[in-house]
């Protein structure tokens, strides 16, 4: 996807031109943002919880190998089979082989960011296995042959009229059709989805999930969700395959108390999410009898390798940063060309994928550095600092490019200018000449490129007739 995707500014322009999308996004993000703020405000120990969460995650990150081996041992003791995958390809072939071993040709899926990150659905389809998403919003996305635009509410870009059309046109092609008289009333839409999905749940032999947390001491996997569709996938099929990022491990069961307070409040603005499923291996006569856990390293190793980048591995995928991000609120998730949009996305994606494409190089700049994300992050990821670090990597790459970049020259020029006070005095004098020639101070309208990037829709103030330092030199009165 990334090889042909346009850089962020171009993709963003396209999204900005869609008034329906902008209205949907504005409504959805402002509602969820306000709810989150409300739920935070009622917690007297919110800052302590954030500090605890960051400390627990940092402990995990600094000894990830120890906790992962502990988790593997506990999972194995409890009857689960643990598989290790270095990257997306390995993870996909492990999962595909596990499904094929059951003889199943379809699987039901719990909403999972990691399986999207590694492109599991495509890999399964290539092997002749049909993956069915069961999270309501993921179902909308899948039926609409679309990609998610938000990590928590992936169909945030769709309104109910659009959902109705998708259900009517697509449900019948892959299972139980929507009733022909389907209205766009949310209750009707939910009922159609329920009937469609129920058929899949009852038939499925294999369920595939991700995992929000993996407790090292007990080998317990935790899935946090709202709809109960995840619970169906986790309990009804005979075989359950959970694909989990290695950074999801938590040292102890007690650590959950911190995250279970932070995660629902930060993600959906709820005190408590409706369904929290926990399981440790196999329980005879209760739930799946074949339980597999695939631990995936992927790009996480690239973050571990750089001490300054490690805080990004604290992320619990709550999406508070994107809901509060002014840029995300305007353009939505698709412009980012990654399963991870918004502030955490522009840090994770270049770390995981590298900076080879124009899109990936543009992502760290999809941010005004307003720092609103850092204030809401429940695990205190210093997002603005990490974003600036990613920009530094892009700058280093551009500076090393054989092709000269205007930006590299401009920044070198600015660096030269700002090294000595007298150089700034000279620049001030030059600007004041322009200011004097223009006479009266007033706004400057449209200018040619590259200034047009500012002046196309905004005026520029005219330069003053005297810089501050010239005024100061003349006796400052």
């Amino acid at each position: 996807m990334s090889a042909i995707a346009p850089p962020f500014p171009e993709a963003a322009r396209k999204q900005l031109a869609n008034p329906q999308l902008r209205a949907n996004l504005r409504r959805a993000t402002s509602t969820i943002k306000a709810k989150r703020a409300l739920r935070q405000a009622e917690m007297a120990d919110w800052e302590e919880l954030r500090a605890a969460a960051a400390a627990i995650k940092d402990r995990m990150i600094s000894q990830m190998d120890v906790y992962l081996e502990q988790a593997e041992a506990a999972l194995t003791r409890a009857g689960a089979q643990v598989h290790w995958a270095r990257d997306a390809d390995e993870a996909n072939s492990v999962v595909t082989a596990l499904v094929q071993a059951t003889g199943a040709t379809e699987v039901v899926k719990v909403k999972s960011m990691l399986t999207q990150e590694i492109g599991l659905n495509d890999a399964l389809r290539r092997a002749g296995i049909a993956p069915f998403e069961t999270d309501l919003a993921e179902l909308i996305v899948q039926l609409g042959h679309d990609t998610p635009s938000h990590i928590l509410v992936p169909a945030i870009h769709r309104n109910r009229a659009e959902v109705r059309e998708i259900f009517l046109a697509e449900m019948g092609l892959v299972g139980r059709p929507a009733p022909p008289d389907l209205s766009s009333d949310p209750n009707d839409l939910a009922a159609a989805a329920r009937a469609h999905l129920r058929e899949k749940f009852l038939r499925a032999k294999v369920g595939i999930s991700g995992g929000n947390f993996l407790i090292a001491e007990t080998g317990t996997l935790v899935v946090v969700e709202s709809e109960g569709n995840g619970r169906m996938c986790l309990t009804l099929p005979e075989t359950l395959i959970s694909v989990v990022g290695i950074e999801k491990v938590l040292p102890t069961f007690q650590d959950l108390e911190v995250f279970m307070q932070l995660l629902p409040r930060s993600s959906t603005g709820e005190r408590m999410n409706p369904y929290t499923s926990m399981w440790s291996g196999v329980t005879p006569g209760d739930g799946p009898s074949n339980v597999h856990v695939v631990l995936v390293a992927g790009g996480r190793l690239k973050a571990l390798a750089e001490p300054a980048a490690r805080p990004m591995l604290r992320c619990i995928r709550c999406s508070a940063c994107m809901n509060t991000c002014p840029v995300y609120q305007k353009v939505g998730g698709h412009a980012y060309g990654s399963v991870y949009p918004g502030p955490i996305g522009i840090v994770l994606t270049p770390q995981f994928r590298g900076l080879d494409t124009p899109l990936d190089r543009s992502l760290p700049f999809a941010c005004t550095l307003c720092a609103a994300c850092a204030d809401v992050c429940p695990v205190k990821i210093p997002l603005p600092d990490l974003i600036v670090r990613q920009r530094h990597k892009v700058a280093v790459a551009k500076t090393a490019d054989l092709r000269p970049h205007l930006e590299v020259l401009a920044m070198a020029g600015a660096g030269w200018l700002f090294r000595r006070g007298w150089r700034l005095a000279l620049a001030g004098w030059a600007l004041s000449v322009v200011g004097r020639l223009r006479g009266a101070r007033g706004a400057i309208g449209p200018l040619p490129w590259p200034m047009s990037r500012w002046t196309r829709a905004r005026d520029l103030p005219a330069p003053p007739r005297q810089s501050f330092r010239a005024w100061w030199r003349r006796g400052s009165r």
Partner: protein
Amino acid sequence: MADPGQGMRVGLFATCVNDLMFPETARAATQLLRRLGCEVVFPPGQTCCGQMMTNTGYFKAALGAVKAYANAFEGCDVVVAPSGSCVASVRHQHAMLARGGGSAKLVDRVETAAAKTYDITEFLVDRLGVTDVGAFFPHRVTYHPSCHSARLARLGERPYQLLRAVRGLELLDLPDAEQCCGFGGTFSVKNPDVSVALAADKAANVVATGAEYVVAPDNACLMNIGGVLTRGRAAVKPIHLVEILAQTEEDHR
């Protein structure tokens, strides 16, 4: 009025944007600090906080400005700037830049410089202990808190306290005040479409208050919001907070 700044020698960090484009703001800071009894010095070796380069990723290019800052203000006990954004950059980025491209000695020097650097609202409220600076500004204004001033420099209530003490001034609530105006330094030209969309929202909110002036603690934001306002022929005028605080009844006579 007593002179709370009596005996204080203050290094003024004008910032490059104010020095070159908004000298009236740095002049107002000078006049205000002098009125409060401070002795104001302007070390001519100063240039810029370097954040345009830093935040675009060009750490090496920013280092010259970082060194110039530490050198210029070496002899000052306190440094005051009319910009929460530049102050935040001095505090949060200079040491990181010095660690990456300088010596341990430079890290030490920039940390010393950062520790004595204040935004002018912090200096007035925390160091001088004043919120009523004797200002007079008989207009309806609305305040945009500016992201870096609010969330990085953490100016908090100080700007509001100062504004509320200004005689004649009516402070109107800005809807979605904490929302970014879309400037973002080089973001404004690297992502002009998103930048303008955000600035348009901010300008619309400003206009909706019915204020005559939109006030901020950073001129860069005001340049962005003001650019949209004048292009749209709106009558609201941008003004830096310190220019309001510098005006007295005498100026209006």
